[in-house]
């Protein structure tokens, strides 16, 4: 019974940890807008956590510069299992306009398994919520698989 309870709860209370990997700040602001009264992601249980130790979903924005890569990987490794990695905006997926730059080490999927990609520059809040909801579902499945 408790296993089921925990599994159910895992999908209903995903806490986000946001990593800026060299983003232009556009996506960061959109992520905050998701928590505003208009979109209110808290109704789905989303909450911004201050420390990676509390997080379930890691949201990465920005093209993952060479400077930020070790920091991003370190912070991701500090998130306890089960965890989900969401890239937000086009940058961490493809490098976007920064692709090919001498200082960009991305895309992120070269280094870690990314669970959800939310494309757009910057993505619409609806798309972000959709992506996060998907991540929450994956989180629940991961927990269910773990046993």
């Amino acid at each position, binding site marked *: 019974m408790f296993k089921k309870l925990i599994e159910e709860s895992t999908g209903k209370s995903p806490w986000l940890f946001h990593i800026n990997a060299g983003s232009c700040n556009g996506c960061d602001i959109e992520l905050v807008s998701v928590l505003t009264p208009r979109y209110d992601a808290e109704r789905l249980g989303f909450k911004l956590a201050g420390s990676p130790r509390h997080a379930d979903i890691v949201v990465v924005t920005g093209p993952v510069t060479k400077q930020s890569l070790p920091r991003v990987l370190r912070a991701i490794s*500090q998130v306890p299992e089960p965890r989900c990695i969401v890239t937000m905006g086009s940058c961490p997926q493809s490098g976007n306009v920064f692709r090919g730059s001498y200082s960009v080490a991305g895309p992120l999927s070269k280094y870690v398994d990314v669970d959800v990609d939310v494309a757009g520059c910057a993505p619409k809040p609806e798309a972000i919520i959709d992506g996060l909801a998907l991540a929450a579902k994956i989180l629940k499945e991961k927990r269910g698989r773990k046993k």
Partner: protein
Amino acid sequence: MNMLGNILNYQHFPIYAIMVLFLGSFLIAAFGENRAVRNVLALLSITAALGFAVALVKPVLLEGEIISYWMGAREPAGGYAIGIALEVDALSLFFALLVATAVFVSGVYSIQYMNRDHNEKEYYTLYLLLCGGVMGMVLSGDLFNMFIMVEILTFAAVALTAFRNTVRGAVEAAFKYLVVGCMGSTCILVGTAILYAQTHTLNLAQLAQLVPGEVNTATKLAFALLFVGFGTKAFIVPFHPLAADAHGAAPASISVIISGVLTKSGIYGIIRITYFLFQSMGLGTVQFLLVFIGSLSMFVCVTMALAQHDFKRLLAFHSISQIGYVLTAVGLCTALGVSAGLYHAINHTLFKGLLFLAAGAVLHETGTTDLNKLGGLAKKMPHTTVLFLIGAFSISGVPPFNGFASKWMIYQASYQKAVESGNIGFLLVTIIALVTSVLTLASFVKVSHSVFFGQLPPELENVREVSWGMRFAMGIFALLCIITGLFPNLVTAYLTEPAAAAVFSVKPYIEAMGFDGSAAAALEGGSFQCVGAWDPVSWLLVLCIALLAITIVAVAGKYDNVSRCRLSTVEDKYQLFYGGEKQELSQLGGDDLFWGFKHNWRAYFNYMHRLHSGIVNDYALWAVVDLALVTLFSLIVL
């Protein structure tokens, strides 16, 4: 057989308790070259002193007998006491027990603590001299004899403060202590002389009979002199900076004696002169004097402690702050108040001893007591950490440790006094006491974070736990802290209430020595009844059940199934979160941890900082000003 029985008669035990300590001191001075001989002699004499004190518990504390002992059987002649007398009532024995316990534990601790020092022979000689001085003072029945003992203990304490004269500031601290301590001793001597001139006697009981009828300008001056003199011994405000310096420099085992026992002798002296010699505690103004100085010591010293960044200096200020509690409670002049104060005196000796020993253990292993250089020792010295935490919780009054029980009584006593006397000032005392208590907690949170938790600096990687002997000594104190915390009813019934009752029975004290006590003012202390109820055992039982239930649930839910680093190199996952950066040493400095509080009080702290200049001339001046004020006060009100 008869002779042996005569020797083992408990009437002789007070003098034995003093004698064995001095005898040990002299024997070590003579034959203490060998380490084993020295240790055996020291241990024997402190154990014997403890044994004699404990043996007196039954007749004196439980049966209420007052032992009067004329040295060399020189009984009073012609109505005047000529010989030197010992007079042991419940109050004296109470303090003697404290002395014996603290001396015993600190002596056991010394054996391994001092093993890296040279001049151990001199150490033990002085140590036992100091202990004998305190023991002699609290058991004495003669004012001049008290002065002699005060001198012995002051000089021994000064010498021991400077014992580690290679430590920076040790000699300076000893010098300050010497100057102001001598001023205090001189005050006592002059006060004694004035009283002798007025009443032609030095016997405490006879003084108590004669002085209240002789209140004139001279005896008022004597009161002020004696009060200030014993005040320096208790380090109450304005003598607190001396304590800070002395404790910072002295070895930890000596700090235990200075803080736990020497200050108590000052309190004992103050009780003797206010309650017994002058019987002035019935006056609201004298109560005010004690309560005011007590509350001032309490608050000023706790705020001073918050600003310290040296472990032992911090403890020293707390020591005076707790003495402030004792003095305040004693100054309330109610049975509950005195009983609470004496209870706190016991607890102060125990937890302060424990804390100083823990500080000594840290110093012994790491070589420093600077809060900014330490950290994370809990992983290296787990037992010391637990023992320290017991002491820290006790002094901060976290239930169910002993500090809570006595502070709780002090709050009730002061608030009750406020309600009964209708004086709103006593209400302020309750509030100050409560706030001081939480500031004490803050300061010990600081210590536990800066020394035992937080991060371990790399240079402390090779620190080890202290030897078992030192842990054993700390363990005794910790155990006593827990026992006195868990069974407050037993402590009050068998220790503090008899002693407090003795404080309120001047007449038997005078009559035990064969003088006429009919004129003694009868002070009414009221009942020992607390307003609230505090039952630590059932509290602890409930807490244990709750904790057990929660733990069972937690363990069943795989709470302890944690992932932790098992490799010698720390993987990223097990590093601390530094915003993504690599883990590095960034221990928060100890001295300014509570700046949110200090910022609002910056005017006060800056003023205090300027005031505590560290110059001995200033402190001597404070002593003179204090004496002048108290003299003025006593001339007006007494």
